[in-house]
């Protein structure tokens, strides 16, 4: 592959800086550990190939956009529901180990949150993850999910409403 290696150090830095965001988004989209791995690998290679055309503005949104495109392609190819169902229980356990002060309560909260987010349609879930976990701006989210800002705003609101409703329903049980 004729690749200008002078670009590589920059790209490596970019990739390293945003690997966590990339993986987190992939994981929340495809809801499967192995598939999220594949998605990020593929996305990084694609990003490297497109890197010469990257103008340097907002690397994270640019990279996440590629991650999302790859994830969507994979999900269309496979069966989204079948894959998604596999993740929630094991994931909640996996991430519960992330802090020494993590108490049972927190673990329960996380598990509950997973279940709640899992019930949301993908296009609402991705907006919530990008806004609340990755803390992207509306403009950045619009770029990543390839939708107008107005659409992002209404998806965010619908997602938040559904999340709150689902949480209330859980509490009521």
């Amino acid at each position, binding site marked *: 592959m004729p690749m200008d290696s002078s670009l590589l150090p920059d790209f490596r830095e970019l990739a390293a800086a945003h*690997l*966590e965001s990339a993986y987190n988004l992939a994981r929340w989209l495809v809801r499967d550990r192995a598939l999220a791995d594949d998605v990020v*690998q593929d996305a990084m290679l694609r990003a*490297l*190939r497109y890197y010469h055309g990257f103008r340097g503005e907002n690397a994270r949104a640019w990279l996440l956009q590629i991650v999302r495109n790859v994830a969507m392609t994979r999900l269309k190819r496979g069966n989204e529901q079948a894959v998604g169902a596999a993740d929630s229980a094991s994931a909640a356990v*996996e991430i519960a180990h992330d802090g020494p002060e993590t108490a049972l309560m927190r673990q329960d909260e996380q598990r509950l949150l997973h279940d709640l987010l899992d019930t949301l349609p993908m296009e609402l879930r991705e907006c919530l993850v990008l806004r609340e976990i990755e803390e992207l701006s*509306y403009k950045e989210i619009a770029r990543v999910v390839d939708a107008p800002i107005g659409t992002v705003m209404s998806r965010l609101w619908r997602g938040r409403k559904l999340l709150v409703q689902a*949480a209330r329903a859980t509490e009521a049980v």
Partner: protein
Amino acid sequence: MNDHLECEQTLLVQADFDGELEASRAAALVEHVAQCPQCQLVSEQLERSRTLLRHAPRYPVPQELRGFVDRTLQAQAPAKQSRTLVRAAGRAPLLGWMTALAASVALAVVLLTPRTPDVEAQLLASHVRSLQLESHLIDVESSDHHTVRPWFAGKVDFAPPVKELAGDGFPLEGGRIDVIGGRTVAVLVYRAGRHVVSVYLWPERAELGDLPRPQRDEGFNLRRWVEDGLVVSCISDLSADELERFEHRWRAQ
């Protein structure tokens, strides 16, 4: 709550909540919310959703993925590095390039057989490229050598041996043709767990380069030997031991 019951300022309240509203509009909105019960409800829901999501975790990146990204990005520019190496050999201090044992092995090969590095680099680039786009990985998709073998007829001017290694843990995935050193070569693709082994085959008479010793290049392992007049090159990110096992199983058939 149904959408049609919501105040038309709802999304503005949310934008303010997300810090997306300019100060002048935000001030006006505060006045509105103070007298709009619907928007007060919206504010409550926004707060509640953020509380719920406050502990939403970021998934930790698996160590294997970090390793893959590092290795793959390093493998992307081998051709250029190799060519530079050859040019530099006549005049420049070489130690600067020898940052790792792997690099020094590659260097020895470069100096002894000037035509080899391009082939090595092309094999590596081809293998990496094939992993990027799955459509490039395989032209004929089959685990049956009776399907894959005839597929090569008319595409390459030799009959590549297509071996069944599924019993050894290396199921055949398919084959493709590729171009290495300006020559069309046959490639067999085997799966090894989550790894891919590409087996490149071309006739010895093609003289694409001398045989290097088994080597490790930027996280990929390469093994090559001559068998029945064909040069067989295996490349994979499998461990050196596993790739050696692959070679043994292949040659045992």
